[in-house]
């Protein structure tokens, strides 16, 4: 036990004795410090009524204490006099009854007064429905399921349909008191003084008024309406389809490594070319006097002569491509050489139909022809700053239009009339002038990932399909932002296409829907294009999350082709 305490006054240590310690303890426990003190000693009544022999105080009482007060007497006599004279009356009791009078002079005239600023009257209590009746029609009563639902919402009563359980009584006499009545009134009082109020605009329009007025699709015919042919033959998903410039045949490239040429009128597969690797793209040369099909197979781009159609053209094409033009003193730069090589075609390949073979340094995603049929471009997404190449058929030369990487390039497109080149990167579409060799415009899509694009035959409008479900219509004269963003699809849009003659465009998506829209472009610059969806076509099946992969219009007829992941190609007329 600690007994040593520092004396603050002297600064010396003092050792407490047992007595001191007890003293401290008694003080701590609220007792009288002295342990010998008798707390319950008998009481001595010093100032008692008993007269002592020797009084404690010996002062005699004053005389006034025995006499009535004079001042009091004066006061009382004054009061008596006032009462006699009728001056003093008892105070009238204030009436507790309220006094009502005519507060308003007239029914609807308001006096000038200060009032609550911008008063919002409280909404009235909702009036009862049939369910609240003491004798409702029996359909309003809860069945077992509804009763269970009611019980399950004990913790969140605001989610219930009513704030009471509907009851049915045989007669009025049986109706009991409603338990929550006072509570509901109290809740209303709370709402009145505690609930924040605001003015809300109530909508008076109907849902129908929000739907735009569009021309009837019947008036916008012709457009494809029905699936009239299904081309089966591929053993894997069909990546790409392309139409012969005469409109008699079309070719399809599939993941099973084959390119098939089909006749449209009969539905027969005319030719099959096997390559043994994934065919990513096929594109027919638009020159009608040539019979050439560009095929992108892995890192090769092959121009094949499919050998269908006019024999004269087939022979002429073979003749034209059999001899290589003189390159003179042209030597491709190292950059081009590293990226692409025109390889000579041997006998074996020639017999397979291959006329020209161009080897690329990376996998080729897309091949697209210029409208004249002499130039064509190929895209390698992984090619970095050499991802786009433009090849010339007549001179067998290649060139790289881009010096620097512009991001992941998705697809490219030649302008149908002017020397303009479109390059779609992941989020933007860059428009280049090929003569001036400079960028003219950058179309900002605002989408996350562009998948495909197509240009109107007039050349002033571009549609862009994106993997984030949107199709964007760009009017090149109007702005670099989309004129309209169309959210037609429930899944990624894989392919978009314009019709060459009719005002139609289509979009195919992974949700297996092919949507045909009427897209009228007016010559008048003041009038904006008219876009009306006219038909939703469904036919393809889903295969490992892929739906429609490629779509294309017939060049003369209002027909549309679609190739899907379900190994088929469908023709809608």
């Amino acid at each position: 036990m600690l007994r040593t305490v520092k004396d603050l006054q002297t600064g010396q240590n003092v050792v407490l004795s047992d007595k001191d310690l007890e003293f401290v303890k008694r003080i701590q426990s609220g007792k009288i410090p002295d342990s010998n003190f008798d707390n319950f000693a008998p009481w001595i009544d010093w100032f008692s009524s008993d007269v002592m022999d020797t009084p404690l105080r010996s002062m005699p009482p004053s005389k006034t204490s025995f006499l009535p007060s004079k001042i009091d007497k004066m006061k009382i006599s004054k009061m008596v006099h006032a009462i006699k004279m009728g001056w003093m009356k008892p105070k009238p009791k204030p009436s507790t009854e309220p006094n009502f009078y005519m507060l308003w002079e007239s029914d609807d005239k308001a006096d000038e007064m200060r009032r609550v600023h911008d008063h919002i009257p409280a909404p009235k209590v909702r009036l009862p429905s049939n369910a609240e009746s003491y004798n409702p029609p029996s359909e309003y009563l809860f069945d077992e399921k509804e009763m269970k639902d009611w019980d399950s919402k004990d913790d969140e009563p605001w989610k219930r349909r009513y704030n009471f359980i509907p009851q049915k009584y045989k007669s009025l006499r049986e109706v009991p008191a409603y338990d929550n009545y006072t509570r509901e009134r109290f809740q209303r009082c709370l709402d009145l003084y505690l609930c924040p109020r605001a003015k809300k605009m109530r909508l008076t329009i109907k849902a129908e008024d929000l739907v735009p007025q569009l021309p009837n699709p019947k008036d916008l015919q012709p457009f494809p309406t029905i699936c009239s042919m299904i081309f089966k033959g591929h053993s894997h998903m069909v990546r790409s389809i392309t139409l012969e410039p005469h409109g008699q045949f079309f070719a399809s490239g599939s993941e099973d490594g084959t390119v098939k040429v089909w006749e449209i009128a009969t539905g027969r597969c005319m030719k099959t070319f096997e390559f043994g690797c994934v065919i990513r793209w096929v594109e027919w040369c638009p020159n009608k006097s040539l019979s050439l099909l560009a095929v992108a197979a892995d890192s090769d781009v092959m121009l094949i002569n499919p050998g269908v159609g006019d024999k004269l053209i087939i022979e002429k094409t073979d003749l034209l491509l059999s001899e290589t033009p003189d390159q003179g003193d042209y030597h491709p730069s190292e950059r081009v050489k590293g990226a692409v090589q025109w390889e000579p075609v041997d006998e074996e390949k020639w017999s397979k139909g291959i006329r020209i073979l161009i080897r690329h340094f990376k996998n080729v995603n897309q091949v697209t022809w210029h409208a004249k049929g002499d130039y064509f471009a190929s895209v390698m997404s992984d090619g970095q700053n050499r991802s786009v190449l433009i090849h010339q058929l007549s001179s067998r030369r290649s060139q790289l239009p881009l010096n620097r990487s512009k991001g992941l390039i998705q697809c490219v497109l030649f302008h149908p009339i002017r020397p303009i080149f479109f390059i779609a990167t992941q989020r933007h579409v860059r428009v280049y002038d090929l003569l001036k060799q400079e960028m003219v415009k950058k179309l900002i899509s605002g989408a996350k990932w562009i998948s495909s694009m197509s240009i109107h035959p007039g050349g002033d409008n571009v549609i862009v399909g994106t993997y984030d479900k949107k199709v964007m219509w760009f009017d090149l004269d109007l702005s670099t932002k989309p004129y309209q963003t169309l959210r037609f699809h429930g899944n990624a849009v894989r392919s978009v296409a314009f019709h060459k003659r009719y005002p139609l465009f289509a979009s195919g998506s992974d949700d297996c829907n092919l949507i045909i829209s009427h897209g009228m472009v007016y010559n008048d610059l003041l009038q904006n294009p008219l876009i009306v969806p006219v038909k939703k076509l469904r036919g393809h099946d889903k295969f490992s999350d892929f739906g429609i992969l490629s779509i294309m219009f017939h060049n003369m007829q209002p027909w549309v082709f679609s190739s899907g992941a379900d190994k088929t190609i469908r023709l809608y007329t």
Partner: protein
Amino acid sequence: MGKIKKKYESGEATAFMSRKMALRKLQLSLKMFRKLCILKGIYPREPKNRKKAQKGATDKKTLYLKKDIQFLLHEPIVWKLREHKVYLRKKGRAKALHDKVALKRVVDNKPMYKLDHIVKERYPTFIDAIRDLDDCLTLTFLFSTFPSLRFVPGSMSSLCRRLTVEFLHYVIEARALRKVFVSIKGYYYQAEIKGQTVTWIVPHYFGFQPQSPDEVDFRIMATFVEFYNTVLGFTNFRLFHSLNICYPPKLLTPRGTAEELNATNRLHWDNEEDLVSERVAALNQSLLRSSDAPVEEQVPEMDEFPVTDDAEKLEEMKREAERVKKLKNLFGGLKFYLGREVPREALCFMIRAVGGQASWNGDLFPGATFDESDDTITHQITDRNLENKQHVSRYYIQPQWVFDCINARALLPVDKYFPGAVLPPHLSPFHTEREGDYMPPEKRKFVDMEKGIVTPEDAFELANAGEEGEQEEEDDDDDDIDEEEDEGDLEASEEDEELDEDERALKDLKKQMKVTKGEAEIIDELKKRDDETKEQWRLRTMMIKNKHKRLYRKMMDSRRKRRREADRLASKRIQIDESTTKKPKKTKKSKAK
């Protein structure tokens, strides 16, 4: 360069004040502020941009308009509230010191305040006051049933009772009652006063139910009632004067002595005043009018309607006015005797408000005007099975008949409302179905009746006949099918007998060879057209502007929800109807066997 603008120093940030700021500004405690807000009708406001209004604070605050708080600053009652605080302190002190003289002096000088000016301020015109009468009446009716509670003095409940009785008297005298409804919560009444519809609820007639203090705070409600009593008093005063009735109300009949009145009512009352007030509260006698001069309000002539372009609307308005006119004297000339088990006050009020006369057993309550033995009684309202003592000259009916008649604005046939009968459902007159909502068949009948397609008697008869007829038709159909099947079997068997075995073999051979006739595809033109329009619609909805897409989806969702609700009720009804009609059928069949 202009002056740099600081954040939250203009615009919405300065227009609002949080409650804490308001309390500081007014120098009041929260309790007093609450009372002041209730009395003055100040309420929090929802700002357009809460973050700005709260000066960047993200928690949710109770925001008042700054102007409202400034308005409170000039209220004389604020001083009275402060005086009241001082009064309570003084009273407490005197009590603690057992100083009776001081206590009496303090209590006698209790600071009182009047709310007259606040009533005028909150309701600049009389019409405004009537428009806001719903909550006032509902709460006053509730408080009129309360005993003396801790925060509700007895004088408050008795004042509530007095004011509600006065108001009911006005509705009776003005014939203003329009709709009534018995709900499980209470009685709903709707009256039309000065062109405004006023709806109030009266709880079922039972004693006071104690409430737990966590759920109901009577202090808050009492503050509301304090204000509402003032409003209702002034409103009653003006309403009574608009009909030239004396205020406070006095009975029209000459006042007899207490003894005489006691004799007629066979009830003993010591205090004459009490007896008179009880008789006023009975609602069964007309009130004394100050003069016989024509009242202010007059029924407008039919051709005085405001000119509207829509002829149909005008026609509808005229018809409505005609119906209301009929309702005002619906029970004219009818005499009702109320059994002791029915809610006397509610029924007496309703019957008298549409022109009828009512009475009850004088032993039970003052104000009875005729006896049960009176032969001129046309209806006796009873809610229990028939007693032995019956009068032939009157209908015995259940109370629901009165409610349904007023809602239908016609005298309904009584046969469905006889004592012990299964009552037809009691429907809410307030619920107007929008397009696509569920409407119970009973309501449809009423709607047809209102449109004038069928008379009330026809409506009931048709409904009955329809049900029976349908049943019969169903039975017929079943029989027909059975017969046809029988016939078909017979024919087949006959043919089989006729055929020889050879022929049969040939037939089998032929059967094997024969080309089955393809069925022509039946194109349902209607369905095709329907599908086409549907698809067109779907294509059009794809072109809704992105701005409106959410709204459109929301609207369609709510519509779908409503339709689902309606379908749910309709299918439930069909199920119930089927189950109820099947049972008697089964019994029929069993009888036949």
